[in-house]
C-alpha cells in the first residue's frame, strides 16, 4: 500500500488525472452541518466561530471527508448586490431559527426582475437589484449593516476558515463562487421568459451573457482572494455553478451555454485559479461538447461535478481529460439505506476510479435531512473500495 497522503495531496492527484493512495471522497455537506450540530441558520450565517465548531462536530458524525464546503453562499446571501445570483433579490430573506417544518433554509427562487437587457448592460445590475421592486426587505436594513457585510464581514469569515484549515488539515471545497450567465438569467428573468428570449431575441441573450462574463468572474475571484487563494489550500478553487436551465437541447447548449462557459473557465485558469464546475441536470447529451473544456489549458486545473449525468458515460468521454466528481443521489441519502449507498458508491468507484481522475461525492449537495449513516456510508465506501 502507498503511503497515506494528506487530503489536499489526494485531491490534487485526482485533479491531475492520477491515481492517489485512494479515491478521494468529498460529500458536499452544507445545511446538514448546522442541522446535525444543533445550531440555527442564523448562527451559521452570523457567527463564524459557531459555524466552525458545528462543522467539526458534524464532520465527526458524518465520518469526515477530504475537504469542506466553507459555504461561500453565506457571503453571497449577506451581500449587497448581485452575487452569483444568490443575493438579496433572489433569496427569501429570512434567516431562520428553525429547520422545517417550523422554519426553513434560505431558499433561492427566480424573480423576473430584468425587463430590458440593454438597460442592464448600460447601467449594471445595482439599480435593478437595489430597488424596492428587487428586494423589499433590504430597505429594512441599515446602510451601516450593509457596508459591514459587504466589506468587513468577509474578512472575519475568511479568518475563521483559515484557522479551521490550519488546525484540521482539511482543505476548502472552494474560495469563491460564480454562476453561468444563463443561470443568472434564469434567476433574474425567469425560465419562461428566458426560453422565449432564446427563441425570439437570441442575439440579445448572447450579448447579455457576454456582458455577464466579466461581472461574474471578477466577483468570484475577489471572494477567493479574500478567502486566501494561494495560501489557504482549496481557496484557489472557483466553484462554477449550476449548469444552466434544465432541458437545453444540444443546439441551445452549444450556442448559448458553452461559449460563455468556456470563456469563464479560461479567464479563471489564466489568472491562476482552479475551476470546480458544479453543473446540475443531465448533461449526458452534451458530453461531446464538454470534453473540450480543458482545451488550451494546463493540466490539473479543472474538475467537473455532475448531478444527474450518466457517470459511466462521462468517464468514457472525459476520462483522459477532466477529473469527474459525483454523484450519490440526494433522495437515496434521505430515504435509502447505508447498504444502498454502499452499493451505489462501489459501482461508481468501479466505473469511474480506474486510472485516477475521480472524486466520490454527492449529487449536488447532501440534503440537510439526509440520514447521517447514509452520508457516513459514502466515506466508508471510499475506504472500503477506493484503495488504488
Amino acid at each position, binding site marked *: 500500500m502507498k503511503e497515506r497522503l494528506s487530503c489536499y495531496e489526494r485531491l490534487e492527484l485526482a485533479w491531475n488525472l492520477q491515481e492517489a493512495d485512494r479515491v478521494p471522497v468529498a460529500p458536499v455537506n452544507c445545511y446538514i452541518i448546522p442541522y446535525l450540530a444543533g445550531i440555527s441558520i442564523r448562527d451559521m450565517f452570523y457567527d463564524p466561530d459557531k459555524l466552525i465548531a458545528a462543522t467539526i462536530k458534524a464532520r465527526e458524525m458524518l465520518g469526515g471527508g477530504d475537504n469542506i464546503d466553507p459555504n461561500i453562499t453565506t457571503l453571497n446571501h449577506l451581500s449587497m448586490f448581485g452575487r452569483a445570483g444568490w443575493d438579496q433579490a433572489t433569496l*427569501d430573506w429570512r434567516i431562520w431559527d428553525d429547520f*422545517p*417544518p417550523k422554519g*426553513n433554509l434560505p*431558499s*433561492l*427562487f427566480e424573480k423576473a426582475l430584468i425587463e430590458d437587457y440593454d438597460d442592464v448592460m448600460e447601467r449594471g445590475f445595482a439599480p435593478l437589484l437595489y430597488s424596492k421592486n428587487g428586494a423589499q426587505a433590504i430597505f429594512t436594513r441599515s446602510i451601516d449593516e450593509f457596508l459591514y457585510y459587504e466589506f468587513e464581514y468577509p474578512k472575519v469569515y475568511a479568518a475563521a476558515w483559515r484557522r479551521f484549515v490550519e488546525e484540521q488539515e482539511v482543505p476548502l471545497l472552494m474560495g469563491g463562487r460564480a454562476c453561468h450567465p444563463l443561470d443568472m438569467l434564469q434567476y433574474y428573468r425567469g*425560465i*419562461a421568459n428566458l*426560453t*422565449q428570449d*432564446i*427563441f*425570439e431575441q437570441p442575439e440579445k441573450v448572447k450579448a447579455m451573457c457576454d456582458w455577464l462574463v466579466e461581472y461574474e468572474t471578477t466577483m468570484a475571484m475577489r471572494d477567493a482572494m479574500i478567502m486566501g487563494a494561494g495560501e489557504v489550500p482549496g481557496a484557489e478553487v472557483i466553484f462554477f455553478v449550476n449548469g444552466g*436551465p*434544465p*432541458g*437545453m*437541447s444540444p443546439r*441551445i447548449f452549444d450556442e448559448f451555454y458553452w461559449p460563455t462557459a468556456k470563456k469563464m473557465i479560461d479567464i479563471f485558469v489564466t489568472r491562476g485559479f482552479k475551476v470546480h464546475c458544479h453543473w446540475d441536470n443531465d448533461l449526458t*447529451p452534451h458530453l461531446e461538447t464538454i470534453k473540450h473544456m480543458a482545451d488550451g489549458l494546463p493540466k490539473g486545473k479543472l474538475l467537473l461535478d455532475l448531478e444527474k449525468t450518466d457517470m459511466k458515460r462521462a468517464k468514457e468521454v472525459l476520462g483522459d481529460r477532466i477529473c469527474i466528481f459525483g454523484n450519490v*443521489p*440526494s*433522495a*437515496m441519502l*434521505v*430515504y435509502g439505506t447505508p447498504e444502498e449507498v454502499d452499493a451505489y458508491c462501489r459501482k461508481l468507484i468501479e466505473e469511474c476510479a480506474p486510472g485516477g481522475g475521480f472524486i466520490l461525492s454527492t449529487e449536488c449537495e447532501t*440534503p440537510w*435531512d439526509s440520514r447521517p449513516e447514509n452520508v457516513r456510508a459514502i466515506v466508508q465506501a471510499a475506504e472500503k473500495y477506493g484503495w488504488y
Partner: protein
Amino acid sequence: MGKLSDALAVLDKPAVLAAVQEGIEAGTDPLQLVEEARLGLEAVGREFDKGNYFLMELLRAAQIFKDAVALLTPKIKERYGSAASRGTVVIGTVAGDVHDLGKNIVRDLLQCNGFEVIDLGVDVPAARFVEAIRQHRPKVVGMSALLSAAVTQVGRTVEAIEEAGLRDQVRLIVGGGIVGEVKRNMLRVDHATTNANEGISVILDWFGREQA
C-alpha cells in the same frame, strides 16, 4: 397534419400565427383551428418522448400554442358564447418547495388540452389546497414536489384533504423529480409520475371515465 400543426411541430411561431390568421379570415371554425394546433403540440410531445426535442422546446411549443389560442379566443366566444372547458384542475407546488418549472409545464399542457387550471403557485400550504377544492370543486388536484422534504408535505396535504372530508371528491396526482426516487406508497395519491405527458393522459382518462 395541416399547415398549422406542421408549423407548430417545428416551433415556427410566425408561421403558426400566420396560419391561424389565415384560418380566421377564411372563416374556419376556430375550434377546428385549436384542434389543429393541438395536433402540432402532440407531435412536439412525441419528439420529446423520442429524445429529439428537449424540455426547452416543449416549453416553447406550449408558449406558441398559447399565443395561437389567444388569437382564437375572441372568435370562439363570438361563435359559441364562452369557450367550453373540459373541467377544472387545481395545481400547485407543495409547502416549503419553490420549484415551479415542471408544474408550469403541466399547467400549460393542461390548458392546451382545454382544462381550466387554477394555479396556486409555489410553497402552497395544505390548507390552501383544501380551500381551493371547496371553492373551485375540481375533479383533479395536482401537486408538484422536488425536495425530499416535500414528500412529507405531500402526505400532510393528503391528510388535510381527508380531514376536510374531501378526499372522495377529487383524484390526486403528484409529479416532480423526487417522485421518481421514493417508494410510491409513501405518497398515498391516485397517481405519481415524473413525466408530464403521462400525467396529462392519466388526467384525460379520469375525466373521460367520469363523463362516460
